[in-house]
């Protein structure tokens, strides 16, 4: 979205040439009126953020929710303390690391299996005929429904959490790899055929590169799902991780701990999705051409 808006703005600044006529686009300077300032989007961003924080503070300070809500400042203080103090033997960094480690293991394991499987399914109808029906049985089951059986199988240790992450990330990874190949425009294959290419050329030069953006979209989706899954697993049973922080807050009715944990999860999930986006830019540079259009 942001890229698109930037692109549009950049186009607006240059002179656009359509066929044989040149459009001069000159920005007209509008006078700075009160109305313009008030309806400016960034100004409104600031106003609404401030209003949100102020409202939060007031509601929390008024004590309507008793222990169920705390002021934003209390959250900041609590978490600044956690940077050095420990909660159940780990500092904040330790808990973030524990969650991130689970995510990394589960996410890598799932994508290493799911993406090739999805590609195979799309490329070979026999693989598809064998795997798809079984996959379709598992698809509609929310990964969180697996939490209980994972605990029955693996206990409350690391394995059960990683198992749930694998279950959660497997489906979008596989589906996107599968659809990424199936939705390739048939004209691209025709080009290879016309140029006298073999099936192998089709796969290497059309299927793989063209499915890359879809695969990365799947990775993004499954990463955000992975955070949801790890959170669910840690909420049910754990001794470390960001979900554990939230559960501790719930047990002791410590709203600062709960809200801070929520904010930390949002932050870490955001950073990890930035990492994937960066990896995508590195691994498939051709995607950028589409965005710049």
């Amino acid at each position, binding site marked *: *979205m942001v890229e*698109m808006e930037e692109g549009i703005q950049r186009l607006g600044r240059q002179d656009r040439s359509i066929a044989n006529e040149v459009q001069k686009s000159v920005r007209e300077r509008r006078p700075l009126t009160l109305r313009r300032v008030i*309806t*400016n*989007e*960034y100004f*409104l*961003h600031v*106003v*609404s953020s401030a209003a*949100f924080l102020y409202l939060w503070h007031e509601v929390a300070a008024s004590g309507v*929710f008793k222990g*169920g*809500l705390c002021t934003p400042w209390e959250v900041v203080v609590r978490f600044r303390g956690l940077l050095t103090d420990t909660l159940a033997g780990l500092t904040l960094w330790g808990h973030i690391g524990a969650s991130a480690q689970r995510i990394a293991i589960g996410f890598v394991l799932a994508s290493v299996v799911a993406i090739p499987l999805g590609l195979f399914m799309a490329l070979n*109808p*026999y693989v598809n*005929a*064998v*795997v*798809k*029906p079984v996959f379709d*049985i598992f*698809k*509609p*089951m*929310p*990964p*969180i*429904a*697996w*939490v*209980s*059986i994972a*605990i*029955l*199988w693996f206990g409350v240790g690391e394995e059960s959490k990683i198992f749930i992450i694998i279950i959660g990330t497997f489906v979008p990874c596989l589906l996107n790899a599968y659809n990424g190949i199936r939705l390739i425009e*048939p004209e691209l294959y025709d080009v290879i055929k016309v140029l006298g290419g073999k099936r192998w050329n089709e796969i290497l030069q059309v299927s793989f590169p063209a499915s890359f953006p879809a695969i990365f979209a799947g990775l993004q989706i499954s990463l*955000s799902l992975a*955070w*949801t899954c790890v*959170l*669910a697993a840690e*909420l*049910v049973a754990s001794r470390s991780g960001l*979900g554990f922080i*939230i*559960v501790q807050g*719930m047990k002791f*009715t410590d*709203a600062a701990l*709960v*809200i801070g*944990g*929520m*904010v930390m*999860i*949002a*932050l870490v*999930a*955001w950073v990890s999705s930035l990492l994937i986006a960066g990896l995508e830019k590195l691994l498939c540079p051709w995607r950028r051409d589409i965005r710049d259009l």
Partner: protein
Amino acid sequence: MAYEEVKVRKPLGLILLPFFSIFCFFGAWELIVRLGIVPATMLAAPSAVGNLFVEKLTNPNPDGATILVHAWVSMQEAFLGYLLALGIGLPLGLFMGWFGVVRGIARPIFELIRPIPPIAWIPLTVFWFGIGLWGKVFIIWLGGVVPCVINAFVGVRMTNPTLIQMARTYGASDWQIFKTLCVPSALPMVFGALQIALASCWTNLVAAELLAADQGLGYLITMGRRLALPDMVVLGMVSVGVMGALIGMVIDQVEKRLLAGIRR
């Protein structure tokens, strides 16, 4: 595109393989439990799950309700949350797409809430609403409202700018453009949101019930784990999956009907 529709007969192997693989899957599942490769305390055979399902149709023990009651409770929560998410999320997204003032006010708060998984809200909702109906509805609503807003927003933003410029040339007001151009052109994206939001709602329903509930399919799963009854856990998972798939199909049909007039 000048493609001619050619009916290709599938080879017999391709038609039979799916049935074969499903059969093998259930056969292997039944066998590993029967032969004791996986102990019966960890996994229940499909036949045991089927038996329990028939029994649970009438017997409310040991978790306090029959499976139909559990399913009905879950449905109620899911649909309340879903409808609220549609009712609030879609208009908000549409307005955010077209009116700069709404976008300016709503965006920071939305961006703040969007990346937090709805599950993380469970403790706060327990503080605020207790473990009754509305707490779960709130979690489900949070799960559903985000995709609704995003899809409606993107739908409006993708309106053909030429049409908007033309409408401006003819002197249409902002509201007229929104009503007659932006909303109709956002409709396909909006209908896409119906499916995505439903899937999200259903996932979060299970999460909400896992942690704070005394009835519902998610609760059935939790009780199965607490009582170490794997057949109950699997039954709960299967019911959640089947119901999710069924509701998805219904929404899919509704979407097709509604879109029939648009996509031609």
